C-alpha cells in the first residue's frame, strides 16, 4: 500500500490529501493530542503568545468602555465622513468571514475533498471574524444597550417599528443570520469529533462534558444518514447565504446616491473581495498553525496551493472590478462620478488607493508561477499584503467618496483618532485570542471528515494498484 503511495508518477498527477499513509487511529491521535494535553503542561510559548494577544484584547475592552463613557465623538467620524473606520472595519471583518463559509459550504457542494483538512479552522475563523465585525456597528450606535431596537421586538420604550425599506435593517438580518447559521454549521461538524474526544478520555469529568456536548452521539448508521442529509442541506443553504451577506452589505452603499457608491457592480465585487481577503486570512492562520502544531501531513502543500489558486482568481476578479468601475465612471459621462474616480487615484488619498491596487491586483499575479504558489514564505507574505490591501479597499471606497462628494464647500478630510486605531488593533487581538483558544481546546481539523477522505484514498490507491498489475 505504502509502495503505491510513493510511486512518483502517481504522486505528481494526484498527490494524496493525507500524506504519510496514516491509519484511522493515527489520525485521531494526531489531532486529539493537541486538545488532550494537560492544560498546565501546554508549552510556555503558547501562554506567552496568549498573554501578549490577550492584552491587546484588554485594550479593546478599555477602548469600548472609553467610547461608551464619552460618546462616539472620540472616534474621528465627523462631517462629511460620518462613516469611517468603524464601517471600514465592519466590512473588513465580515469579508474575512466569507472564506470560512465558502470552504465549508461551496467547496463541499463541489465535492472538493481537499477542504476537509482546513474547513474546521476556517469555520471557526468565520465565527470570530463576524464577532469582531459586529462590535463596530453595535458601538457606532452610541448606545449598545439599546441594540434590541435593531430587531422587530415589541417594546414600550421605542414604540416604533423598523423601516424595512432600508438596507441597514436588511444588514441586521443578514449578519445575524450569517452568524447563527455559521455557528450551527460549525457545531454540526464538531459533534462526531466531540464523541471521539469523549471516547478517548479517561477522566470522568471530561467524559461527562464531551458527552453532553456531543449529546450522546454514537456514530450509528442511522445517525450518519440523518447527519449527512442535514450537512448537505446546511451546505446548500449556506452557499446562497454567503453570497447574499456581502451583497446586502454592499447595498448599504449601492442604494445611496453618493458618487463612487451608487453602482450596480458592488454586490459581485464585494463578494469576490470578501472571498479573496478571507482566503488570505485562512492562509495566514493555517501557516502558523501548521508550523507550530506540526500538521504538515494533514495540511499539505497541495491544500495551500489550491487556496493560492483561489486567491489568484478572486484577486483578478477584484482587479477586473476596479477597471470596470473606472471605465463606467468615464463612460457614464457623469461629472461627479468621473471626478470621484480621478480623485480616488490622484487625490489626497492616492497612497491608500495605490496600496490597494498593488496589494490586491498586482502582487497576487505572482501566483501564476507554480514555484511561488508552493513557496511557504511567499504565501505567508502575500496572505498578509492581501489583507492590508483589502482593508485599504474598504477605506478607499468609504472615505474618498465621502470626503469629496458634490459641492466643494462641503468637502473635508478624515483623520482617525488614537481611539480608532486602538479599537481596530483590539479587534485583531480579540480575533487572534479566540483563534488561539480554539486551536488549543477543540479539534482544529475535522477528524471524521478526514477519516472519510482517508478511506476513499485507500480505496482509490488500492484500485490503481490492481490496474498497475
Amino acid at each position: 500500500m505504502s509502495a503505491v503511495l510513493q510511486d512518483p508518477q502517481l504522486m505528481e498527477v494526484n498527490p494524496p490529501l493525507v500524506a504519510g499513509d496514516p491509519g484511522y487511529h493515527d489520525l485521531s491521535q494526531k489531532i486529539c493530542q493537541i486538545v488532550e494535553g494537560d492544560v498546565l503542561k501546554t508549552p510556555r510559548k503558547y501562554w506567552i503568545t496568549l498573554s501578549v494577544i490577550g492584552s491587546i484584547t484588554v485594550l479593546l475592552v478599555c477602548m469600548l468602555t472609553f467610547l461608551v463613557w464619552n460618546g462616539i465623538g472620540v472616534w474621528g467620524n465627523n462631517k462629511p465622513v460620518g462613516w469611517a473606520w468603524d464601517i471600514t472595519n465592519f466590512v473588513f471583518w465580515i469579508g474575512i468571514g466569507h472564506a470560512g463559509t465558502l470552504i465549508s459550504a461551496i467547496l463541499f457542494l463541489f465535492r472538493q475533498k481537499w477542504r476537509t483538512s482546513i474547513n474546521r479552522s476556517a469555520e471557526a475563523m468565520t465565527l470570530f471574524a463576524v464577532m469582531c465585525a459586529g462590535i463596530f456597528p453595535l458601538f457606532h450606535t452610541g448606545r449598545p444597550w439599546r441594540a434590541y431596537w435593531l430587531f422587530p421586538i415589541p417594546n414600550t420604550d421605542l414604540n416604533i417599528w423598523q423601516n424595512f425599506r432600508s438596507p441597514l435593517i436588511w444588514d441586521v438580518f443578514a449578519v445575524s443570520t450569517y452568524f447563527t447559521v455559521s455557528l450551527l454549521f460549525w457545531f454540526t461538524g464538531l459533534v462526531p469529533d466531540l464523541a471521539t474526544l469523549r471516547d478517548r478520555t479517561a477522566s470522568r469529568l471530561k467524559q461527562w462534558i464531551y458527552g453532553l456536548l456531543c449529546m450522546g452521539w454514537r456514530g450509528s448508521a442511522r445517525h450518519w444518514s440523518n447527519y449527512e442529509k442535514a450537512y448537505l442541506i446546511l451546505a446548500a443553504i449556506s452557499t446562497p447565504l454567503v453570497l447574499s451577506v456581502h451583497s446586502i452589505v454592499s447595498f448599504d452603499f449601492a442604494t445611496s446616491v453618493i458618487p463612487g457608491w451608487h453602482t450596480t457592480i458592488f454586490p459581485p465585487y464585494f463578494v469576490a473581495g470578501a472571498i479573496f481577503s478571507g482566503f488570505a486570512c485562512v492562509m495566514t492562520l493555517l501557516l502558523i498553525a501548521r508550523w507550530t502544531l506540526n500538521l504538515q501531513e494533514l495540511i499539505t502543500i497541495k491544500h495551500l496551493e489550491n487556496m493560492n489558486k483561489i486567491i489568484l482568481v478572486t484577486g483578478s476578479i477584484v482587479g477586473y472590478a476596479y477597471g470596470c468601475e473606472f471605465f463606467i465612471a468615464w463612460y457614464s459621462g457623469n461629472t461627479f462620478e468621473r471626478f470621484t474616480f480621478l480623485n480616488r487615484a490622484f487625490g489626497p488619498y492616492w497612497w491608500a488607493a495605490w496600496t490597494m491596487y498593488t496589494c490586491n491586483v498586482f502582487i497576487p499575479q505572482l501566483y501564476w508561477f507554480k514555484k511561488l504558489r508552493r513557496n511557504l514564505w511567499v504565501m505567508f507574505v502575500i496572505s498578509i499584503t492581501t489583507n492590508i490591501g483589502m482593508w485599504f479597499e474598504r477605506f478607499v471606497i468609504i472615505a474618498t467618496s465621502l470626503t469629496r462628494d458634490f459641492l466643494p464647500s462641503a468637502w473635508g478630510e478624515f483623520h482617525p483618532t488614537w481611539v480608532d486605531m486602538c479599537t481596530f488593533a483590539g479587534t485583531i487581538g480579540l480575533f487572534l485570542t479566540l483563534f488561539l483558544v480554539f486551536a488549543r481546546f477543540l479539534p482544529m481539523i475535522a477528524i471524521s471528515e478526514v477519516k472519510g477522505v482517508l478511506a476513499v484514498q485507500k480505496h482509490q490507491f488500492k484500485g490503481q494498484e490492481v490496474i498497475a498489475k
Partner: protein
Amino acid sequence: MNPKFDVDQIKDKLGLGPDKIYGVMGEFSEPEELVEAGRKIREMGYTKLDAMSPFPVHGIDEAIGVPPSKLGWMVIWFTVLGILTAQILIWYVGAIDYPLVIGGKPLFDFSYTIPITFELAVLFSAFASFFGIFIFNGLPRLYHPSSKHPSAYRASDDRFLLVIEAADPKFDAGKCVEHLRSVGADVVEVVEG
C-alpha cells in the same frame, strides 16, 4: 418522592437491565468489511440491524437497510414557515400597525422584502436541519446499551461495529454470534440492555 417514580419500571420501558438483551455486536477494522458483512447478514434474513462507525461509511445504508433520511421534508416546511414569517412581519409592521410614508415609497411591496425573506428562510431551515439531526436520531441521550461492548469506545476512532438487535424477529443470541463470526467479525459479544 413521587410514588410513580419507579426505576425498574422506567428501565423496563427503555429495555434496560441485566435480564434484557440489546443485541449481538461484532467488530470490523475496515469499512469495506463492515459493508460486506452487513450485506451478508441482511441476506440471512435479519432486519433490525445497526452499524457504528467513526465516519459515514459509503454503502452501509443499502447494505443493512437504513431507510433514506426524512429530514429534508421537515426542513422544507420550515423554509416555507420562514418565508411566511418574513412576509407577514414586514407587511403587518409596515402597512398595518405603523404605516409610515418614507420617500413616497409604497407601504408594502414584494421587491424590498426579498432580502429579509431570504435571510429568514435560510435561518429557519438551518435551525430545522440542526435540530433535525438530534430529533430524528433520538438525541440527546445520556446512555445507550451499545456502549457496553468492549470496542464501543473505538467506534469513534478506528473500529466498525455491526449489531443484530434483540428486537429482530429472527433473533437468537447463540445463532447471531455464530453468524457474525461467519462473516468475519471479531470480538463478537452478546450485549445486555
